[in-house]
């Protein structure tokens, strides 16, 4: 499973997205607002899940803006911080 696929699975399962399959989520699709239409409380859950699964912290608005654009940007954000 690629990191993108893992992220999609986490989002669907942990955020209880009904009627959404991993293959429905585009890698460049916006996560918030348009696209997946997650909301601000989903952001709280996503911060928690990224910390739980990858040990990576999303600390503030700037990092959030960077990470939460799309699945690709979230993967990039995690990879950068996981690399020693």
């Amino acid at each position, binding site marked *: 499973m690629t990191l993108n696929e893992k992220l999609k699975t986490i989002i669907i399962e942990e955020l209880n997205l009904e009627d959404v399959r991993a293959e429905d989520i585009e890698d460049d699709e916006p996560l918030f607002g348009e696209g997946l239409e997650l909301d601000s409380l989903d952001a709280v859950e996503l911060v928690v899940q990224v910390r739980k699964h990858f040990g990576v912290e999303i600390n503030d*608005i700037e990092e959030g803006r960077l990470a939460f654009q799309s699945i690709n940007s979230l993967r990039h954000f995690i990879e950068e911080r996981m690399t020693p």
Partner: protein
Amino acid sequence: MQRTEKQETDTRLPRWSSRSLGTRFGHNIFYALIQLGGRRLGYFALHWVVLYYVLCRPSIRGRSYDYLRHRFPNQSLIMRYVNCYRIFLEMGRVLVDRTFLGYMGAEKMKSTVHGRQELLDLVKKGRGVILLMSHVGCWQVAISALNFLKVTVNLLLEQEEGNIDRHYFEYAGVTCPIRIIDPGSYLGGTLQILDVLKKGEMVCMMGDRVFGSGKSCLQVDFLGEKAPFPFSAFKIASATGAPIVVFFSYKTGYDSYALKVSKIIQTPENLGRSGESYRQYVTQFVNELELYTREHPYQFFNFFNMWQK
């Protein structure tokens, strides 16, 4: 706080407005009176202004009815007018006090904190504290009295155009002593909230108003009928481990307020996304709020229909 953009609204929810009851001209007259004659002159003028609103402005008078109807279900027509007068008068006194607080400084207002040691103990734990308040008493006095905690206080505050009530720190022309988090900012300010809680700071939020979509609220019994209350504070508490302190203020005398830690709620960690997981905690908050309205019926200042279907 639940909204990601200011435009995101849900017409199914009761709409509240932070627009002021009075006009800018009326407010400016009060500011001048308070500066000239202190609070006593402000209070004196208030009686006449409130009487005018109660007798001659039915649309404004009507804004108090939804709450009064629930709090005093068997009130007669005359008592409805009397209760309306009393609640508007209390609201006016709080506004005068708030203005006075800004001009004269917080130390001129006596405030007694009940639960001081509990607050100190919670801050010391370093997990941050969510102070869950309500539109009751004078929350500005409550916040200004938190200096003893020696911790940065953040306030989630939305102000829409048309709200001409200034905050106490705006009169003195000083830098705002608290940090404002705008719920209209990116992701409703949630990332900022997580950040400051991680630093062990305090975040003040209102537990009685719902912004944006109804996704983040639960229908809970309040004064005999279901009303929507947000569960966002409890979700953030569950995600961060921060305790929730239900904190209310009430006016106790001419120049005194009491601030009370009404309840401390610790939500289990990682309760998840479903709103139902937070029902028992939201209900605890609402029960405390209802108790407050029993004890201080004229210091509850939500002038909109919270119970609107």
